């Protein structure tokens, strides 16, 4: 959330007290990002909506256990990471989804007023497809880095791995992406 330690502590205190304004601020700050992350991880709009709702609901229920070892943002992504990977593993539909292109329509329409320099629809579709073909743990690492702009340390916290593992996953993800997107360069 881009706030300092004492501000974060103050926010957490208000959250544990059930302060609606504080929760509203957390929701409005992270809703789009968490939804986008879930959507790119599951590649299914309904599941992304379902998982995003569950992320925020679990955060409310579990705020009493939040110890401040990570930021609220990292904590929300930890919940999203656990839910998404659990859902993908349980459903074992990841491979099948690579063939289901309907989810891409959700991602490839540029929002009104989008920067003219952003990639065109064909290129966006190619990037989304290439991301979708990555193994979920590689996809997650590259999304957190490139789309969510998180540091390796933050990604390691979210995914409960080491910084070295994050470094390897991002490197491998980029290797595969650059091979698949070579024609667009």
């Amino acid at each position, binding site marked *: 959330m881009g706030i300092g330690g004492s501000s974060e502590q103050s926010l957490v205190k208000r959250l544990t007290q*059930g302060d609606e304004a504080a929760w509203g601020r957390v929701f409005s700050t992270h809703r789009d990002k968490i939804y986008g992350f879930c959507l790119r991880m599951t590649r299914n709009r309904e599941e992304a*909506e379902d998982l995003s709702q569950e992320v925020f609901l679990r955060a409310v*229920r579990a705020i*009493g*256990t939040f110890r401040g070892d990570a930021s609220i943002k990292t904590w929300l992504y930890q919940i999203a990471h656990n839910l998404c990977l659990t859902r993908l593993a349980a459903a074992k539909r990841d491979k099948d989804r690579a063939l289901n292109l309907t989810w891409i329509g959700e*991602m490839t329409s540029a*929002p009104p007023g989008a920067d003219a320099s952003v990639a065109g629809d064909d290129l*966006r579709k190619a990037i989304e497809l290439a991301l979708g073909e990555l193994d979920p743990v590689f996809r997650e690492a590259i999304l957190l880095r490139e789309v969510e702009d998180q540091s390796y340390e933050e990604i390691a916290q979210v995914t409960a791995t080491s910084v070295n593992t994050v470094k390897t996953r991002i*490197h491998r993800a980029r290797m595969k992406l650059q091979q698949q997107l070579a024609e667009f*360069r």
Partner: protein
Amino acid sequence: MACEEFQQGLSAFIDGELTGAEHARLVAHLQTCRECGVLLRQFQDTSHLVRTLTTPPAPAFLTESAMRAVRAMPKHIVEPWTARAHRLLFEPFFAKAGIGAVAAAAVVVLAVFADGEGWMKHLTPQGGDYRLASAPAIAPATDNDFRDPENHGRREVRTLEARQRFAWEHGVWHHERRFGRDGWWWEVNGAWYWYEQGSDGPPDYVSEVRFADSSQQGPSDPQLLAPPKQ
């Protein structure tokens, strides 16, 4: 060092995640190695492409259920004993006081444990003034509507009205001694339901051992405290 080892560091290089020494070594190598330079530019292009992705806005309803849960939250959450012990040991006052603080913290912790549930009283509103809402006894026969004959006659949560069920599902687990009884307590708006075992989510039946915290304004849904009627 071989090119392959330098290439392993290219991603970290463009992400600004190399140490000063690693960065300097890689920069020196890039000045002499065309192959690694080409791969670096490809990585930078790929990174730029992925960063051009836009994230669609989330539907507004995504956080509605969470906000309802916030409104249903008890406004004073009882701090679990583990969290309290952690806070007592590591809060700045003790952390700054050195060895003396460790001894002081130990005394506090001992006092906390010796005091049983007494330490929790100041954490709850108005000193934890409890009243017995319902004796831990078998509920009256009129509750039969809520009992599942195939499940030991327990009142199943699925039989509650939607509004009651919502409040129930937004309760909070506490694992502690309360009202003189050890175990797991499911707290719903100031009403406390005892269970021998906790679970990952809300209990799927309504415990017959239940108490009310009279210091609360009163349960927002009193029917949850009294056996619900259909």
